[in-house]
């Protein structure tokens, strides 16, 4: 089944070029050039992934990202011309799964998209325990007792990665490779921001995390099963 990708970018030449690249790689594409219409376009097009430019006329990319995130955990990859720290972090905090800095090459773009679209990690067991949570890998579901917790696929994958090896301390680089598919040094802020987002959803007290614990100077590990 071909995946459908919504490209939200006001630069028509770039959007068209991205479209050419993606279609060559066998994706279906849809376009939107206006931030204000992006959320509607997402609703009507029902894509499998959104490529979102950070700077858009109308509503900016961060706002679009926030609005989509309120309704769905669909993978969102930001395109940004700005490497300024604040912008990238703001974008990630608004819910983007990953980001690509312009200018990028087509292989990089396709690799990032494929990583986000790949089927969820196959775990050895169907059900995992982490802290006081139960993770049903097959059903893509996390529950605290009977209450389900809604996570985006990326957050779910992050949680599964940690829960499947409860003894292992994951460095940020390891998580970048396992969850984001980076095989080289990438921006560890990706991990930091998403761990914060994950904690905000799963921890009872995000300031005193019990599910995803920090190992100072090394990385993160799964909290002890309660």
């Amino acid at each position, binding site marked *: 089944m071909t995946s459908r990708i919504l490209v939200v970018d006001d630069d028509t030449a770039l959007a068209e*070029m991205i479209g050419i690249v993606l279609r060559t790689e066998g994706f279906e594409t849809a376009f939107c050039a206006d931030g204000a219409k992006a959320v509607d376009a997402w609703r009507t097009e029902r894509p499998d992934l959104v490529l979102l430019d950070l700077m858009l006329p109308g509503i900016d990319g961060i706002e679009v990202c926030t609005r989509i995130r309120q309704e769905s955990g669909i993978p969102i990859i930001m395109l940004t*011309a700005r490497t*300024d*720290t604040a912008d990238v972090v703001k974008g990630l905090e608004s819910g983007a799964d990953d980001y690509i800095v*312009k200018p990028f090459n087509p292989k990089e773009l396709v690799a990032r998209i494929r990583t986000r679209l790949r089927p969820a990690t196959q775990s050895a067991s169907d059900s995992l325990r982490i802290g006081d949570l139960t993770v049903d890998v097959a059903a893509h579901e996390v529950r605290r007792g009977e209450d389900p917790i809604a996570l985006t696929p990326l957050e779910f994958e992050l949680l599964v990665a940690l829960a499947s090896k409860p003894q292992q301390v994951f460095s940020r680089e390891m998580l970048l490779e396992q969850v984001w598919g980076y095989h080289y040094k990438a921006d*560890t802020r990706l991990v930091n921001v998403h761990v914060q987002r994950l904690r905000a959803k799963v921890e009872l007290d995000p300031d005193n995390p019990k599910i995803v614990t920090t190992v100072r*100077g090394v990385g993160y590990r799964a909290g002890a099963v309660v």
Partner: protein
Amino acid sequence: MTSTGATETPPRSVNGRAKSRAFGGWREWRGWPDDLTRLWRRSLRFRIVLVTLGLTAAAVLVACVWMALVIQNDLFVSRKEQVLGDARRATSAAQETLDNAAVQTGDSVQLQTLMNSVLAILVQQSSTDMIAAARIDRTAPQAPQDFTIGGFDKALISDGMRVAVRSSAEPQWWQSVALPAEDGGTMPGILVGQQLVLPDVGAYELYFAYDLGSAAGTLGFIQFTLWVVGIGLVLLIGGIAWFVLRSVTTPISEAAQTSERLAAGQLTVRIPVRGEDELATLGRSFNAMADSIESQIKELAELSLVQQRFVSDVSHELRTPLTTIRLAADMINDQRDEFDPATARAAELLNAQVQRFETLLTDLLEISRYDAGSVQLELEPTSLAHLAEDVIASMHQLAEQHDTDVRLVAPGGYTPVDMDPRRIRRIVRNLLGNAIEHGERRPIVVTVDSNQQAVALGVRDFGLGMNAGDAEHVFDRFWRADPSRTRTIGGTGLGLSIALGDARLHGGELTVWSEPGHGSHFVLTLPRSGGRLTSPSPIRLEPVEEQSDEFTRTQPIEIRTDAATPRGAS
């Protein structure tokens, strides 16, 4: 005179107060001379008050001494007149009695009685009881004896006085004498002498001694009061000067403090202006200056902001079309096998130059960010030794292409230190890339070491090296050591400028040593605590003699090529 001591006292006591106030504690008396010198130099108020006190004290001293002398003189003169009158009155009363007495000639008893009554009159009429009489003509046998009463000591009468009194009958003579006091000492007195004529017998010298004790007492009291008032006046004037000066120096020091705060960056501070006097003028002109500075700095800040926004906009505007070009070039390049050779080469060139353009743009934007001061460090505790290891591993392939052996020597630098790992990694990659490019296939030694204040990384190559002039320019933008040399690793000429900028952002330093034929040594030093570098770098910039020896002793260290392999805890 005690007055000298008394007038010197006020400045001394004022000094003492100033000292104890300014440098609390009497124990530090050894430091007083220094403290006073410093106070004299630094405090306008202290200096002026001290000068005022000194001058006032001198003026008051002169006035007091003059007044004391005048009063003393006046008191003496009036007392003398009084005494002379008193003596004259008593003598004339006695003389009248003598003239009216009818005494038979030669009756010594009667004469003696007369003399006694005259004595009584003298004592009664004069205000002193120290009286003496002596015969001048000792030839008359019946004359009464000389007498003295009231403990009159004839030794008081000088010879000159006696001669003067004896010489003529009429005038009074006086003389200052020291009279014996009751307590054994002496007190000032006046001796008055004149003649008294006894009928038939002849003339007697008659002396009255008056003590000036009461006048001296009055004088002493007046002088004492004068000094007290003088000292009080000096102190009062000192105090007044102190308070008056406060109204001048307080606004001045206020102005000084305000300008200090302004200089420290608080652009909104102003001096409160009161009234229309000179100090208010000072305040107003200062405030006007501050307004002008503030507006200019704001303007500059806005300019800088505009520039930053411009850079950011250019970044976005350039990058978007560049992305399109990049995607297109890549796609065309991927299909170059299907083109004829010329077009294929063109596609290849297009692709390579687009990449170069991209690198250049990235570097330029980075540099402009330093210029705009808009770079923020993402500090993270990072082990410099491990970072170096990672970078060497990631550049393994490049090193192999150049047939170069890269060795890591890391005696220290394992403890994580706060740094922005992305930037430090970029520096190390840059240094290592340069070393590989210019290393002439000779081994490259990367050293990591640390001391208490800093961590450092050195990249040493044994290639061509540069002369001192070239080494100076190595961090300049777009500078190239040898323009004719072909570049195998695509550099923009901005790499070392960026590396230096990154090092400085960390409060660190990037230095170079190079010598033609002996290679180069770049040393990056970063402070441990995010502060400034205070001590020399843990790594020596200049190579030690017999460098080649050391480097043969260095054992090659195995470099893990898989950067993602988790490291053991360090």
